[in-house]
């Protein structure tokens, strides 16, 4: 694994005080926080910073990290020394609390669980961090008693939201074997996402959160649905909007046209005198629901190019015969 220079990540000197470290973290967090940042790779940068801050804000972890010495360079091949962690207070059990690893998306197979809830979790951190502060070291996190709820994100296509779909999730949990050792068990579950699920909607899977370590109930798993942007349709709530190109004569004279919708093509009448930007509604053609959403067809008049003698002649004829001033409203 590669060495990580946590001081470099936060842009502070090795001698920096706790306040300087906190200020540097806050400043960078404002810039790279995934909820607010438009920077490329903001999420990856933010995780790096969280990992660095998790170590440097904790005097004990920082002291242990500093013990590795100042000669290491970021990216250098690294292995923890054999006596790693000796001399530091033992703070808990060896196993990490329940949950699973990050990853949800359109591939149809996802890992979901604790690391998905957007909070700080050691599961999100690098192998370098895990080798120093993860399970089996004096710094490992103690197990919790309660079965907590977990949260994960699931990405689906707009078509899947319209028709409904299924997702396979892998939920990884530690289980204590009769001999007292901990075994990681993977539960593969198939979840049906019903037709008409909207952006940001939640799906609850009862009892699929963190298992209870005592007699209590297991937590629930909440899946938050995210619908991927679509090539043609824009989604707003349950309504979809389609930008629909039309010829000038279709807009001027009216026309019957074939329009794509999520449920297949439909015939639509464009009224005579329609303008570019005008929206026509196809009732109930958005996402299913009570009530179902609508599809809006926003007209976009596209001019034919004047790239032939015949086309030029037609434009010339319009210029000479039509009394049309598109700038009439600009004059005082």
């Amino acid at each position: 694994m590669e060495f990580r220079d946590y001081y470099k990540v936060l842009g502070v000197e090795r001698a920096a005080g706790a306040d300087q470290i906190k200020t540097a973290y806050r400043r960078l967090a404002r810039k790279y926080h995934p909820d607010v940042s438009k920077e490329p790779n903001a999420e990856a940068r933010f995780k790096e910073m969280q990992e660095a801050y998790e170590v440097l804000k904790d005097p004990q972890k920082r002291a242990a990290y500093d013990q590795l010495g100042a000669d290491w360079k970021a990216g250098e091949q690294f292995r923890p020394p054999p006596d790693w962690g000796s001399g530091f207070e033992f703070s808990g059990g060896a196993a990490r609390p329940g949950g699973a690893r990050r990853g949800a998306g359109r591939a149809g197979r996802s890992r979901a669980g604790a690391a998905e809830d957007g909070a700080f979790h050691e599961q999100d951190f690098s192998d370098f961090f895990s080798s120093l502060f993860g399970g089996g070291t004096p710094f490992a996190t103690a197990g919790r008693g309660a079965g907590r709820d977990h949260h994960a994100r699931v990405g689906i296509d707009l078509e899947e939201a319209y028709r409904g779909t299924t997702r396979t999730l892998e939920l990884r949990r530690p289980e204590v074997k009769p001999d007292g050792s901990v075994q990681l068990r993977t539960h593969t579950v198939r979840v049906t996402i019903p037709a008409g699920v909207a952006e940001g909607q939640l799906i609850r899977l009862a009892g699929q959160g963190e298992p209870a370590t005592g007699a209590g109930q297991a937590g629930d798993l909440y899946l938050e649905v995210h619908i991927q942007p679509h090539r043609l349709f824009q989604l707003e709530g349950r309504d979809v909007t389609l930008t629909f190109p039309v010829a000038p004569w279709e807009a001027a004279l009216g026309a019957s046209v074939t329009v794509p919708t999520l449920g297949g093509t439909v015939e639509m009448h464009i009224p005579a005198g329609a303008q570019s930007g005008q929206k026509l509604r196809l009732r109930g053609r958005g996402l299913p629901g009570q009530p179902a959403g609508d599809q809006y067809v926003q007209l976009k008049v596209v001019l034919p190019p004047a790239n032939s003698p015949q086309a030029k002649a037609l434009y010339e004829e319009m210029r000479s015969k039509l009394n049309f001033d598109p700038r009439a409203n600009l004059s005082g």
Partner: protein
Amino acid sequence: MVRVTHRLEAHVLDEGDWIAATEICQLCRLDLGAVRELAELGVVAAREIPPDQWQIPATALPRLRVVGRLMHDLGVNVSGAALALELLEARRELERRIRTLERLASDH
């Protein structure tokens, strides 16, 4: 590693579903006081179930999770996070409208 496969019953939460505030707190890393303050600020709806239970609409969970992340990661207080949330949502809406206008204006 042991592998087990089974099918799960999923419950889709919509406008009619409410979640206990204590559960919301744990999912969003917020304390009960912060959730109440957010309800007072009008960021989320809340209802009281006597004698002392509070519930929040399930649909508010994504917004509250953003508030929780902003408070925890950036060190802002409740009203600051609520303001940031509203500005982020306004920005997202403006970006959506820009995309719509760009589609309309772009060459086809």
